[in-house]
């Protein structure tokens, strides 16, 4: 149990480090004109606003994704203890499910527009695989669905406890 918790938290920390470094590097280059890797020698005045808006949307999608994973992991403790029928879990499911769904949508839309971008900027749109965002949408919808199932289960369990 403890090992599982440790493993999941390490994975989460690694994920957030990867996403945050990606965000820091790309936003410093596109928004502030400070390129750490000298990929495009950008001049922040030359970069069009559409690129900036796209990057902002992508960063928003990634941040929502990390936050949703955080919310989800926080309540997974209950799940691993076998307390499935808990109202906290239902709330967490619906909230993180919606967040996953929204971030999947945002990411998918931006990754479609990235297709039309100048190839010089592509180095700054690293995490935009479409399959990742579609998977996020599927996870979100599943969590929302399971919330309904869990609610039904809670109701049944209460009835069961009352009849005894």
């Amino acid at each position, binding site marked *: 149990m403890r090992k599982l918790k440790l493993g999941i938290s390490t994975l989460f920390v690694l994920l957030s480090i990867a996403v945050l470094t990606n965000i820091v590097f790309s936003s410093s280059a596109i928004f502030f004109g400070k390129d750490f890797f000298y990929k495009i020698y950008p001049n922040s005045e030359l970069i069009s606003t559409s690129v900036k808006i796209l990057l902002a949307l992508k960063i928003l999608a990634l941040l929502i994704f990390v936050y949703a994973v955080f919310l989800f992991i926080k309540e997974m403790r209950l*799940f691993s203890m076998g307390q*499935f029928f808990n109202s906290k879990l239902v709330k967490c499911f619906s909230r993180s499910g919606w967040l996953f769904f929204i971030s999947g949508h945002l990411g998918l839309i931006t990754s479609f527009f990235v297709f039309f971008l100048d190839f010089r900027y592509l180095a700054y749109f690293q*995490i935009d695989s479409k399959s990742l965002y579609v998977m996020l949408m*599927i996870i979100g919808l599943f969590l929302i*669905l399971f919330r309904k199932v869990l609610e039904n289960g809670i109701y*049944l369990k209460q*009835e069961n406890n009352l009849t005894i």
Partner: protein
Amino acid sequence: MNSAKTLYSILNIIMFLLLGAIGLGIFVLALMLFGVKQDFIGLKYDALVFKTKATLYVFTFLELVVYVAFVVALWKLRKATKLLLKKDFYNNELIIEMFTSGQLMVLSSVALWFIDEIGNMFYKRQITLGLSEKTLVYLLIIAIGLFLMLFSTVLRDTKAIKEENDLTI
């Protein structure tokens, strides 16, 4: 918005896209086996990256097999969502479909990961290491699979409670 309906339609679209891609892949591989030359559809990987040409074909074939396993998993998930659409939560079929779909998802993504990494190590001339979005996708699919397996046990528990409940009345 009905989440089950949206999920069902998304699964349908993905499955048809994947089936089309697999069909195209098998078609191209068959053309290559029979020695027909064409240059309008190519393989995903460049032949120059691989050490020999045979490894490229083996690699592509293995990936196609894993994609088939993934499509089977999606098919089972689609069946399960169809049952969920009918609000028929406590069904033995649903539980079994969910469990096998989760198992297949974990299996296929782990297999694809291994094929990718081992292919990189042994077959290719250039190797890229690091965390890419591909790794994230594999991890996400493994997470979905494990989650489905977990949820099928939850449903089993609920089903037992429901049966007990029905009996006491």
